[in-house]
């Protein structure tokens, strides 16, 4: 058991990037305290966001169900949704962490029982699932509790149920993945897994978004439909809840919290869920350990007789600056996690917006409160909205604000090459600007189409989007040049765990929000807005650009990697 606990702690620290124990006598410096405060604020912000979403959803659902006297179904719906969500997210998490790195092979070489290894991995994945499940069920319990005043024991049964719900879901994920990865050689590659997981995650995220948007639009227009089709006794959710014993037992316990049957239901649920865990550990551990072997194998396809032809075609002189820009683009776009969390946002955000538009357009247009906003959009405000959307997309790729950090491993070599520092950094800026233009055009184009804007408004919006996104990209590069994250083991740390990307995202939101506020509060026409928020940022961009190469050269010389 001692080995299991050590391994579980190791995996949990590794998965969630938790800091290790502080050395005795070590003090927290200002930077660490700032980081801790920033991370805490960010986590609270994220929880608040999810809270608003779940509470809003459950509140709407409660009111719909209460209108037909079926409010008790809210709790069943919450347990079923928590089961489904932990199944989906658990599948992605367990897949992406199935083989972390070559450390796993070293663990296989140690005297560790496969059961301890598998159970530790299961535990580490379970932690995030349990938190998610608790969050989902808790938000329903709070709504139900405030509205219906049930016995306080409901909270205890609900919390215990929330911790049990993810266990069979996660076990089921491993019952699929372990046999699959034992036989499917092409999946035994960490990059392939990350790519497959990323695409599945996106698809599922978009599916959830569609569900959420559909629910919300129907909440406003047709509560009876919600009651009947989404959470009513004959709905798919309710049928699934009754068919799936843990959901039914959890619902029973929460519905009659003060009865002896509640405790018995919870005991039954615990026995059912834990039997899945026991079965997974007993049946899968050996196969899991075996399936880890071969993950680090690579196969090279040799050119053979085509070598000469290949070299003739591919070894050609190019422009020195062009080759630097091309390197930047390839290095980012070929790292799946960089692509999905960076430039891919230009594709993803319009798709999410499209789903929202498709699901909510009717409700949006028929809402009398929106009449004023629609009039404003049609009288010139549309150009501002389109411009700000384009600016957001063109600024949201995190390319420039992580450009130096992502290149940390290559910096010593780059510094040995005869490349002017200014040129090296400008290649990074060019990379950001190329995608900035794509984002600006995509954002403005989408809003032009959605709001039915004319060519003049679209052009004004595009000028705003280009000016603002160029400035943000320049500022991002300046920030990452001033304070790059140069020490990391996992490439993700350079992007997702880089404070510069968080600062720039929040800064961009502030800039865009401020620009929107000023444009609407001052009643600027589309071309006035284009002048203020296209031309002025453009001039600021040019000023920063002129000063940047000399600064970048000094900073590069000072970077000791």
């Amino acid at each position, binding site marked *: 058991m001692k080995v299991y606990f050590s391994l579980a702690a190791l995996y949990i620290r590794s998965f969630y990037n938790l800091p290790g124990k502080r050395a005795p006598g070590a003090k927290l410096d200002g930077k660490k305290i700032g980081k801790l405060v920033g991370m805490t604020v960010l986590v609270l912000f994220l929880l608040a966001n999810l809270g608003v979403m779940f509470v809003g959803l459950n509140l709407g659902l409660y009111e719909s169900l209460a209108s037909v006297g079926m409010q008790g179904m809210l709790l069943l719906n919450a347990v079923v949704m928590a089961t489904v969500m932990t199944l989906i997210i658990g599948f992605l998490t367990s897949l992406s962490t199935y083989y972390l790195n070559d450390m796993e092979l070293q663990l296989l070489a140690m005297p560790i029982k496969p059961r301890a290894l598998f159970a530790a991995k299961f535990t580490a994945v379970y932690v995030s699932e349990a938190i998610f499940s608790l969050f989902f069920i808790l938000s329903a319990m709070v709504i139900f509790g405030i509205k219906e005043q049930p016995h306080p024991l409901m909270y205890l049964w609900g919390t215990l149920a929330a911790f049990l719900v993810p266990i069979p879901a996660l076990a089921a994920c491993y019952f699929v993945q372990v046999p699959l990865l034992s036989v499917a050689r092409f999946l035994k590659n960490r990059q392939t897994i990350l790519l497959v997981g990323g695409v599945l995650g996106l698809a599922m995220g978009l599916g959830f978004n569609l569900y959420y948007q559909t629910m919300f639009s129907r909440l406003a227009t047709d509560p009876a439909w919600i009651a009947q089709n989404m959470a009513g006794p004959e709905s798919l959710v309710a049928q699934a809840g009754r068919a799936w014993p843990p959901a039914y037992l959890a619902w029973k316990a929460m519905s009659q919290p003060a009865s002896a049957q509640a405790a018995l239901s919870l005991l039954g649920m615990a026995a059912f869920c834990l039997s899945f865990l026991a079965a997974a550990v007993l049946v899968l551990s050996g196969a899991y350990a075996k399936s880890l072997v071969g993950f680090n194998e690579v196969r*090279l396809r040799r050119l053979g007789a085509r070598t000469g032809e290949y070299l003739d075609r591919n070894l050609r002189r190019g422009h020195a600056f062009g080759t630097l820009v091309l390197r930047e683009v390839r290095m980012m776009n070929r790292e799946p996690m960089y692509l999905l969390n960076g430039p891919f946002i230009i594709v993803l955000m319009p798709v999410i917006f499209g789903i929202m538009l498709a699901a909510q357009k009717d409700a949006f247009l028929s809402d009398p409160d929106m009449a004023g906003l629609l009039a404003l959009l049609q009288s010139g405000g549309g150009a501002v909205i389109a411009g700000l959307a384009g600016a957001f997309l063109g600024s949201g790729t995190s390319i420039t604000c992580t450009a130096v950090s992502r290149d940390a491993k290559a910096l010593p070599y780059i510094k040995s090459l005869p490349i002017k520092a200014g040129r090296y950094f400008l290649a990074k800026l060019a990379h950001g600007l190329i995608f900035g233009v794509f984002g600006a055009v995509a954002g403005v184009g989408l809003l032009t189409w959605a709001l039915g804007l004319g060519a003049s408004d679209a052009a004004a919006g595009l000028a705003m989007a280009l000016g603002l996104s160029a400035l943000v990209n320049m500022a991002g590069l300046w920030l990452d040049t001033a304070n790059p994250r140069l020490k990391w083991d996992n490439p993700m740390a350079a992007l997702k765990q880089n404070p510069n990307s968080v600062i720039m995202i929040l800064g961009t939101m502030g800039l865009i929000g401020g620009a929107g506020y000023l444009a609407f509060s001052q009643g600027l026409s589309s071309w006035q807005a284009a002048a203020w928020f296209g031309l002025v940022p453009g001039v600021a961009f040019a000023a920063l650009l002129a000063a940047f190469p000399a600064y970048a050269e000094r900073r590069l010389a000072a970077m000791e990697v």
Partner: protein
Amino acid sequence: MIELSRVSKSYAKSGVKAVNDADVTVKNGEIFGFLGPNGAGKTTTIKLMTGVLKPDSGTVSIDGIDMAERALDAKRRFGYVTDNPELFARLKASEYLNFVADVYGVDTADRRERVERYASLFEIKDVLNASIGSYSHGMKQKLLVTASLVHDPDNWILDEPMVGLDPRSSFNLKELMRERAAAGKTVFFSTHVMEVAERLCDRLSIINKGAILFTGTLAELKTRGGSDSSLEKLFLELVDDKEEAKA
């Protein structure tokens, strides 16, 4: 020719003095070995030599060109094999070679000829279409060697070049070093492997804790040590003597 004159370097963050008052001169037509235990300052010296780090004091020049004054000109005159082959893992090998050749302004015909020659020698020619990330450590090392020669530099600086190479490639690399030295070019390399240094070097330096303890030929080292021992024994005696003297 590579010249380091009274070069010192302390790392800004840790404050550790990694190189202290180092003097090294590598003449044309010479294979120069740079020896020292782990953490002695070999890689830091090479980083100073290649312009990756700026010295706190002293000067570095390549073929008489001062690195501080005309860094780009100085950098054009050497090829560098780093000790970390984990570079640009997402690029294909051919893309990486093109990148390096473009940076040095090598024309199509020359890059084609040189890549053909060195990639064949190191048996990676028919996998230049693959991504660097799929290469083994040794293959990455061979690719780095190939890239470092794509502009046919007069000075060749290699940091632990034998690590990860198979015996045939290691032999070919040594032959290449001899060939370039015979053509009047400079070869500077660091190593832990005493046998390699003993057989290959015209002259060598031994560094420990940032200080150069000895520079000269193997015969001079033997005379100084007063014995006809192997380089390994002389190296250990020299490093241990200095540590005992300090203690």
